[in-house]
């Protein structure tokens, strides 16, 4: 019976994961959008910028989400936009998390002047409003693609992650199992990778989810100001065009509402997943 313990631990995790409604809801919504982002563009009948139908027509059989004021198919834009928005979120979230992990682990494990230095840098970038920097950078870029956008979003979003990971590393570093690895003659890099990082996996997942959500929102805001990808479509860009071409004044709700609702749903699902995972990883938050 004793031998079965480890299995029990794992099954306990699954038990809580399954029982957690927040996680179930969050993950299902995310899955729906991810599937849509993958499959959606194949269902599209028109080029997103092609003038393919009547101008400013409400949703119909032919144009599921109606058309823009120029007669472009909103659904085509929407399907491609969802894909690019999720891509930016994923890439930007990855980059932000990576840099955060690097800076946090390095400063937290090494300590001393290096940490002091990284800490000051982190604090400075934390204070500077990310969007302002992004606007300046994006404005001067001649060609903006999804990749550059993700890169810049990731590179400005890491500070809080670094701070949180640094604090975690700090508390793990003084644990005795790290000392034990050191007196076994392990190198610092190996200790960080094999002793400290595995203990933060759940935490890193949470950080990534939040970075993901943040990147989606940041990208949407940038696109909305008109600093999005110079080619291609994104959900922010759809809203940008809609507002610029007076969709509000004309009451073209089909042009205005779907992109924002999708962003809200994706980010909301990410947040809810985050809370659910937090409850599972952190037994204190479990409701008995």
């Amino acid at each position: 019976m004793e031998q079965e313990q480890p299995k029990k631990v794992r099954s306990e995790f699954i038990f809580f994961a399954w029982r957690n409604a927040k996680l179930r809801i969050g993950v299902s919504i995310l899955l729906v959008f991810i599937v849509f982002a993958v499959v959606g563009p194949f269902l599209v009948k028109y080029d997103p910028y092609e003038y393919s139908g009547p101008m400013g027509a409400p949703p119909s059989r032919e144009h599921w989400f109606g058309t823009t004021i120029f007669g472009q198919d909103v659904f085509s834009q929407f399907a491609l936009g969802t894909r690019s928005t999720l891509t930016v979120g994923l890439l930007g979230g990855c980059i932000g998390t990576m840099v955060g992990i690097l800076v946090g682990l390095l400063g937290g494990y090494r300590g001393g002047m290096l940490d002091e230095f990284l800490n000051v840098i982190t604090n400075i970038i934390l204070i500077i409003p990310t969007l302002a920097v992004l606007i300046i950078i994006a404005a001067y870029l001649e060609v903006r693609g999804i990749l550059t956008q993700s890169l810049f979003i990731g590179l400005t979003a890491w500070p809080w992650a670094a701070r949180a990971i640094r604090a975690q590393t700090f508390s793990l570093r003084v644990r005795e199992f790290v000392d034990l690895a050191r007196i076994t003659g392990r190198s610092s890099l190996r200790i960080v990778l094999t002793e400290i990082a595995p203990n933060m996996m759940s935490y890193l997942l949470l950080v990534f989810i939040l970075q993901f959500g943040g990147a989606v929102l940041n990208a949407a805001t940038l696109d909305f100001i008109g600093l999005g990808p110079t080619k291609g479509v994104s959900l922010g860009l759809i809203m940008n065009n809609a507002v610029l071409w007076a969709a509000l004044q004309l009451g073209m709700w089909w042009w205005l509402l779907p992109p924002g609702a999708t962003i809200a749903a994706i980010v909301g699902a990410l947040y809810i997943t985050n809370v659910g995972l937090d409850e599972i990883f952190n037994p204190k938050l479990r409701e008995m």
Partner: protein
Amino acid sequence: MGRYLGRKLLIYALTFFLAVTIDWMIPRFMPGDPVSLMIARIGTRPEAAEVLRGYFIQAFGLDVPLWQQYLNFWKALFQGDLGVSIWLYPQPVIKIIQRAIPYDLFILLPAILLSWFAGNHVGALAARARWLDNTLLPVGYLLTATPYMWLAILLAWSLGNVAGVFPIAGAYSFSIRPHLSLRFILDLLHHWFLPFLSLFLVMFGGWAIGMRNMIIYEMESDYSRYLEALGTPQKLIRKYAFRNAMLPQITGLALQLGGIVAGAVATEVVFAYPGIGYIILNAVQNQDYFLLQGCFLFIIIGVLLANFLIDIVYVIVDPRTRLGMTGE
């Protein structure tokens, strides 16, 4: 206390220094020649292009060595010279920004303070009333997940376009000239309400959730348990928990400032509200780089000032920083 504020001030000074440097660096070190780019985008006749080029080179100060350009940039900055706008040529950038700032304060101050106040109180209530908790949590998460501009669009469409209760563009009606009268003030407030509400709502969700989580954490802490074991009524325990949960919320306010700025920019764009955000949109559309740079600097300065104010408030409310017991 001195140490705490001193350290913060040092960081702010470094931040400002870095921000100005970024502002100076980006047009010079980004790939491509910004001057040709601008001229190409403005797309004038060749003769005019030459004049423009001369002007730009002089304005950027590109004809002197880099270090001198950098020093000149700082010098001009301290003289309040941020260059001349291209979009509203020949108005100085600083004038345009000065005109916009009152609108930003008018929207942001009430939205930040009220959402913070209301969010904290509602969050604290949610921590003890289960029905409120069950409704507040989903609503709160949905609100924080909503992009600022979309909530703005939603409000403008529903309350402005469909219901027709509020205007959806501008700071006041075109038909009225700004002057001090009840009619004008009411008109101002009428235009102000929707942008304010959209900012307020998004922020409110975040504060309420933050407060709810913090207060639950505080109610589980050792001092709460001790008071409970001594039979203290819940009222006092909650009061303490609320007070202590406020502290991280104050720090949170400082951390959220960047996001709030972004929100304000997006909201102003939706409502064509003549604050910095609206200027940024126009600067972007008109390739007005001087104006963008100026806006960037003003945002940084505003955020730093706000951060410092929050620090002072924090020192006043948390005895631990006053006694120099914590470093961060």
